[in-house]
């Protein structure tokens, strides 16, 4: 299906999120959409899928003007969208999620649907269990489910809004293979991302948005520097690796044993020094998140000790960790990190360390929020509710909310959803804290990020934890193999040495 946007405009209050956008997408092609955080990518895609309505402008499918007033209309025209924040039903079973919204008789036959589902997924090499509850699936698996569901609904144009931010390298490979198959079948694929390398290997053409404007279209092959310049209006380079770790130990795990079905993580020993950054690498669900939660009292270890600045905090709850200047920023920002419905100023009021009196000094916190908005380059205003921010800006807000006086910060995917410039900026902010002696412990699915910013790395593979590897001497290939379970013999050797050293 040929998809064409003509003169699309969309305002959100004072924000002009899409300005006169004209874009033509050929059927059977994979079109990339690039742009920094808040550029208006999701807005444009939500307009095509009927989730929001444009102020002016029109959509043409195969040359015919169509009115897409709701998602129901979009479905009718064969447009399906995978949203940036998953829109599925976590407490329901996978197969129920698959059936909801599909046309058919009053009583759907689960048996038959499961059979058809299995057939469909085998064509793409997915292996989901139709009986599983969706809240037990990884983000990547939930995406696979959504894609299958959309296809089964008869989508001939498929929009994917940042599908590669939360998934493992393997899942990404599968996803890309599936998308290529679909494009060959003549389906139109729109792929939104700010990961240049993904767009470069997948898309035959990219459109670049900046501050609501379509600034240009580029066909493959691409010149990365040119793309970056178009996205940000300037050239951007990664800073040098630098390390500011000191020698005093601020955090220690001793013989830690955590269990979280089906994972068992045994015998974790290591020390975090002040100013040090430790990256946790591994495929999603290999135990990084479990260990991180055990480090801040959100999961009770079976045995072993968690020691913060010389104090034994084993079996204490998160509150007590917080009182000891430890803070944790989880991955699901809207579910665990931010409070939907509250404005930025209100968030700073709740999270503030100052002015704890009974009455709120509104003016003070409005100013504070505005300062933070400037400092962290958040696109939004002090009275914007957090859910009205673009995905990347929510992440910036979450980071801006971290208290000033912290000695240990634990982060889950700190730059997920951020564009390159913001990611670099954010790490600059974090490293500033390191200079003041703060230590960081973070999970990331992006191995380059881990290599670039950590001093040492812990690698996870199905509950096994490597001893800390020196990031300066580890290569990307090596890390890639380790998280896939290869090359561990060598690691165990290091581990034995490390442990015998630690004992003597």
């Amino acid at each position: 299906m040929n998809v064409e946007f003509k003169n699309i405009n969309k305002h959100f209050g004072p924000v002009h999120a899409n300005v006169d956008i004209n874009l033509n997408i050929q059927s059977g092609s994979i079109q990339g959409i690039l742009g920094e955080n808040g550029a208006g990518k999701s807005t444009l895609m939500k307009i095509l899928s009927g989730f929001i309505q444009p102020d002016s402008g029109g959509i043409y499918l195969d040359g015919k003007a169509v009115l897409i007033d709701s998602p129901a209309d979009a479905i009718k025209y064969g447009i399906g969208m995978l949203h940036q924040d998953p829109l599925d039903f976590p407490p329901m079973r996978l197969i129920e999620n698959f059936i909801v919204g599909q046309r058919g008789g009053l009583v759907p036959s689960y048996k038959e649907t499961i059979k058809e589902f299995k057939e469909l997924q085998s064509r793409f090499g997915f292996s989901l269990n139709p009986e599983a509850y969706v809240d037990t699936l990884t983000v990547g698996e939930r995406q696979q489910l959504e894609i299958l569901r959309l296809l089964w609904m008869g989508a001939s144009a498929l929009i994917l809004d940042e599908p590669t931010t939360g998934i493992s390298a393997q899942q990404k490979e599968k996803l890309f293979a599936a998308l290529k198959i679909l494009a060959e079948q003549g389906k139109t694929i729109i792929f939104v991302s700010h990961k240049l390398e993904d767009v470069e290997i997948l898309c035959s053409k990219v459109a670049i948005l900046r501050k609501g404007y379509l600034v240009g279209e580029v066909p493959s092959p691409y010149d990365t520097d040119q793309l970056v310049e178009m996205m940000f209006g300037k050239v951007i380079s990664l800073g040098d690796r630098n390390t500011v770790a000191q020698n005093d130990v601020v955090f220690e795990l001793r013989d830690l044993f955590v269990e979280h079905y089906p994972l068992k993580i045994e015998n974790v020993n290591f020390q975090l020094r002040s100013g040090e950054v430790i990256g946790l690498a591994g495929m999603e669900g290999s135990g990084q998140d479990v260990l991180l939660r055990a480090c801040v009292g959100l999961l009770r270890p079976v045995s072993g000790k968690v020691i913060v600045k010389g104090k034994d905090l084993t079996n204490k709850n998160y509150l007590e960790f917080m009182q000891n200047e430890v803070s944790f920023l989880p991955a699901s920002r809207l579910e665990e990190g931010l409070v939907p419905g509250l404005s930025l100023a209100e968030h700073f009021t709740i999270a503030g360390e100052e002015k704890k009196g009974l009455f709120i000094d509104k003016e003070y916190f409005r100013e504070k929020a505005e300062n933070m908005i400037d400092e962290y380059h958040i696109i939004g205003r002090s009275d914007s509710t957090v859910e009205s921010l673009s995905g990347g800006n929510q992440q910036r807000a979450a980071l801006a909310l971290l208290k000033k006086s912290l000695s240990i910060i634990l982060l889950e995917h700190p730059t997920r959803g951020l564009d390159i410039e913001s990611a670099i900026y954010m790490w600059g902010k974090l490293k500033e804290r390191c200079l003041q002696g703060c230590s960081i412990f973070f999970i990331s699915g992006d191995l380059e990020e881990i290599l670039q910013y950590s001093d040492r790395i812990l690698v996870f593979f199905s509950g096994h934890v490597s001893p800390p590897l020196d990031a300066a001497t580890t290569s990307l290939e090596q890390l890639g193999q380790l998280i896939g379970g290869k090359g561990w013999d060598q690691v165990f050797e290091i581990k034995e040495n490390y442990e015998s050293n630690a004992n003597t």
Partner: protein
Amino acid sequence: MSGDIILFGLAGVIASGAPIVIAVIGETLTERAGVINLSLNGVILLSAMIGFWVAVETDSLFFGFLAGMVVGALVSTIVAFSSITLKQSQVAVGFILAITCRDLAYFLGNPIMGSQGPIMLSTSIPLLKDIPILGRLLFQQSLMTYLSIIMIGIAWFWIFKTRPGLMLQGIGEKPAAAYVRGANVQKMRYFYTIVGGALVGLAGPLYTLSVKPGWKGTITGLDGIGWIVLAITIFGGWNPIRAAFGAYLFAFLQWLGLVLQPYMTSIPSQVLQVAPFPLMILALLFVNMGNTEWMERLIASLPDTVRLGASKILRSMQSRQPGSLGTPFERQ
């Protein structure tokens, strides 16, 4: 007490549980769509009075029940309009309506206080009524009691087995996700709020025309039933079958209170009257045991085959509130 009397009493429990069952099913449907209709205590009273009045005037049970449903549907339309369209607080609107409708019932019902009205008699079902025990228990009841039993099955089937029912679950869970799947969230919420309200409105005349015949103003003894229905909806985990068990358990405990009173003179009668509530809470705790950490540990330590089964059972027992209950949905 002879066996016969017990059987007679239990059959009475099923009959007196019928209006609670119907109202609980109505509220369950409404809340499944994400709307809390708090007005039901007043609605039951108002529809009880008006339904009785209409039945007296027309000398027709059918019109009496119909009038009750219309009252329920109208009041719930107000709830729907103010909470879904005007996006006002569902709790505040429902609460005010609960009080207003109750007072209206007492005030407007004065003229027919103590009037004689038609009473729904039981209709035995041939053959089935002769089955030992069960026949007496289930098949010598009134038509409305049969209807209440059938409705449990229909509502359960609708919510959990049909396509629209699945969408209903989705709308209550995460309206935005239902919306992108093509649902008209606002329209569906209206629909289920009004249908649910009509069922609640059916419970009223079921009291005044059958279970507790006649309208006697404040001493009719229906004040409070609506709050109980609300509690049972929650304890029933938004599942019609479990909710029906709750309704019958409640009717049974009430009956037990009445029966035991003469034997237990040392216990104040109030204790027996309120006992059903703490007992229901205990039942809820028991049912939600699967959420606790020690239970999860215990299950994780079981061998694989047992574990899967056990966690499935526990999961099916847990009651989870529909994720979006009480929150309006705004398309952007």
